[in-house]
């Protein structure tokens, strides 16, 4: 089963950026939305389990494809005229899925990454949706039984494939940064920079929802970048001075301050250029009324910054929801290799040729990237 993949751009339509707030090495850039429509709301649903097992195919306890991770919370999205406040936080239904006790820990079993619960309500596991998509990228392994591949790889594909990530609370600085951050009146999202590299973006549809979800950012997971660059003292304080030669009245001074504000928005938009405006490979996940849920991966070129994530757009192209995860260099390398192998129909020679390298080199790269188990021991 292959989902349809389309190439698009992420366009921050209907959004603008405000000047950033810096805490240590972290820079949080508020994303504002001027025209707020009330028809798409998000709410948090907390899970209090040590591990969550999500069935991607088949029933809860039946064999099938599973996704196993720590999931602290999910997002409940409701749309079209239903007042989200009436839905949010009211636990009329019994808790979702099934909780099992495993020794001292609890394990929750859940259905699907994205699950429709009512006519106009959808539950999804933010970022896990994108991560699952990323992991299952070329998950099936070789389709032609090339001689080099191990029996394991031929019968099970890359099963199980794992990646690791960093929870937000792993960096104490981040907790502080979120605490002292001053949320704007019309703010619907945030761009998170660490050491002035874009780490993540989170955007929702309604300012009140953002206010409520602000602290959940701490529970989300991030790329290794959140922990790297620990020795950098603090993010540079950027200044855009006013040219006093061009100011001769209070009105002009006001205009100059306004220009300063615009400079900030432009500059930060420029810093987030690896995400906004870049080409992404998007897979459609769900259509909900006028809204369209997709997950995406950027180019996976090793030389560029790469993000995975999910987004919701309105029919008119307005960006209503976005959540991204920045891949680390190692993760990008792994994905890139798999992608090249898949493009070459898993033929090592052809793949090596397209990578402009030798076969031995490619095998070494595969083993270094942790895919040694794909190949027979005898292959050199």
């Amino acid at each position, binding site marked *: 089963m292959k989902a349809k993949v389309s190439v698009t751009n992420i366009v921050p339509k209907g959004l603008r950026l405000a000047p950033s707030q810096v805490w240590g090495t972290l820079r949080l850039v508020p994303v504002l939305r001027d025209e707020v429509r009330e028809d798409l709301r998000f709410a948090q649903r907390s899970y209090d389990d040590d591990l969550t097992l999500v069935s991607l195919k088949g029933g809860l306890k039946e064999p099938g494809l599973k996704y196993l991770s720590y999931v602290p919370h999910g997002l409940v999205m409701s749309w079209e005229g239903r007042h989200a406040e009436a839905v949010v936080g009211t636990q009329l239904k019994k808790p979702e899925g099934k909780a099992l006790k495993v020794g001292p820990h609890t394990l929750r079993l859940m259905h699907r990454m994205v699950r429709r619960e009512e006519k106009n309500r959808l539950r999804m596991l933010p970022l896990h949706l994108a991560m699952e998509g990323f992991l299952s990228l070329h998950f099936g392994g070789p389709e032609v039984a090339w001689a080099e591949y191990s029996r394991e790889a031929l019968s099970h594909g890359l099963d199980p494939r794992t990646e690791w990530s960093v929870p937000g609370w792993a960096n104490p600085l981040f907790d502080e940064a979120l605490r002292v951050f001053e*949320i704007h*009146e019309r703010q619907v999202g945030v761009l998170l920079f660490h050491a002035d590299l874009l780490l993540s973006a989170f955007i929702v549809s309604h300012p009140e929802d953002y206010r409520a979800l602000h602290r959940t950012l701490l529970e989300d997971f991030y790329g290794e970048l959140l922990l790297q660059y620990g020795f950098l003292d603090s993010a540079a304080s950027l200044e855009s001075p006013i040219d006093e030669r061009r100011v001769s009245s209070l009105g002009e001074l006001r205009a100059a301050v306004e220009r300063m504000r615009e400079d900030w928005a432009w500059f930060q938009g420029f810093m987030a250029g690896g995400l906004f405006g870049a080409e992404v490979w998007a897979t459609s996940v769900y259509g909900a009324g006028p809204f369209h849920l997709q997950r995406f991966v950027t180019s996976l070129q090793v030389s560029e910054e790469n993000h995975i994530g999910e987004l919701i757009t309105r029919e008119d192209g307005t960006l209503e929801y976005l959540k991204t995860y920045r891949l680390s260099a190692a993760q990008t390398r792994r994905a890139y290799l798999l992608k090249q192998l898949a493009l070459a129909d898993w033929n090592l020679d052809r793949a090596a040729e397209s990578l402009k390298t030798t076969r031995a080199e490619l095998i070494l790269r595969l083993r270094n990237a942790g895919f040694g188990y794909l190949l027979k021991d005898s292959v050199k």
Partner: protein
Amino acid sequence: MFVNACFSCTGQREFYNDARGQSVSIEFLHAYILGNYRRLYARTLAAGINHFNQGQIILNLLATGKQTPPEDRREEGALIAASLRSLPPQRAFRVLELLRERRINNRRARAIAREYLEGREDPSFDAVKYRSKLRATVAHGHLKLAGELNAFLFHGWRKRVFKTPLLEAFRRAHYEQASLFELPFTIAEGLAVKHGIARDVFLERIEPRLTAGERLRLQGAAARQEGVIAIELGKAPLTKLALYLLSMKPETRRERHVELHAALERAATRTLRRGSVPLGRVAAVLDNSYSASGSTEKRRRPLGVALAAHYLLSSMAREYRAFWTSPPEAPLLVEARGQTNLASPLLDALDWGAELVVIVSDGYDNDPPHAVAELTRVFRTKLDPSRRTTLLHVNPVFASDLYAPRALGAHVPTVGVRDAEDLPTVLGFARFAEGAAPLSELEDYLAARVRRLLERGRRAAEPGVSPVEDEATVDAGEDA
């Protein structure tokens, strides 16, 4: 800078800085000024700084008495005694107790402690309310107290029947409930738990014995328990009152708006009776961004100071307008919310044509960052080089990493305040904070204040003059 820090820092947690950093930072400042400018350090006691720092200075001076130059000895001793007397009793006793903890026990320290205890009006009340602190002081300084007090403190209240009524009530309160209600509130509170008296019954019966501060503090708790403690809104100091009103729910504030508004105005007028600078066309730029919510230890203090400053300035000025960062419906309904956009309200204030602009903010300016610094630089250098408009930044928050309240660029003087009541004093200090006035001038200014403090102390010691009234007349004369 030091005086500035002494206005705002209390060694507690702030929105952006933690308590540990605060205490390390202020300790360093104290040590530095004490080592290098001893006379200035002592005279700072008279500058109207906050109680926390007064206590620190007294302790540090007593600890290093040997280094006092002979010609300053007299003044220093008098200053210490006078400012110790002006501290609230719990603070003063804490200072005395710290003498023991820090092992300061020279002749002067003992004399100061003895003099302080002799000056107290009701020693048996102190003995009950501050029992452990008083005992520490007496034991440490080998002091003799009058009447039954020494026996009460050292032989224990169990041993005998006392003739002094309060001491006897304290003894009896351990055995019977009725006597408990003759004791000070904080002492009775603990004994009430011991006797298992229900909280609402206890509050009702102890009510006549509550002090004004205790009344204010207990309001919230009493409301939760459906009990009502009569509170006279007219008595509390302005900033405390503002903080208390801000702790009410928005609906309550809306319902009782007229009453609360009047209370704040009265408090402001009362503050100004102590000393007022008549002002012309004044604009206040008030920061009610999210960071004004303060910390768990100083809840909503920056916002409370802003609100109090609003009322204070509006009654000081001939013409007044407030510019909030996110304008509330009415000043009383203000909430700490949103980003800090100081530039736009400041521009509005300048547009309005104010003669004096007072900015009340924690100094974090993030929408866009450094906008105020840039704006004021251009304004000062290009639009108003002759300083027709005075700009002043009043900061209720001490930034431990800077050893000072955070400033808004080099073109606005920043002064720290803890209570809005300090504003009249601070308007006098603004010149020094700007760095424009030389050190000698600051010394003269302080010397003048020292003289007044000591005079006041001497007169307060005479019977018939209540210290509060006295303070009012002195301050009024000085600031005019």
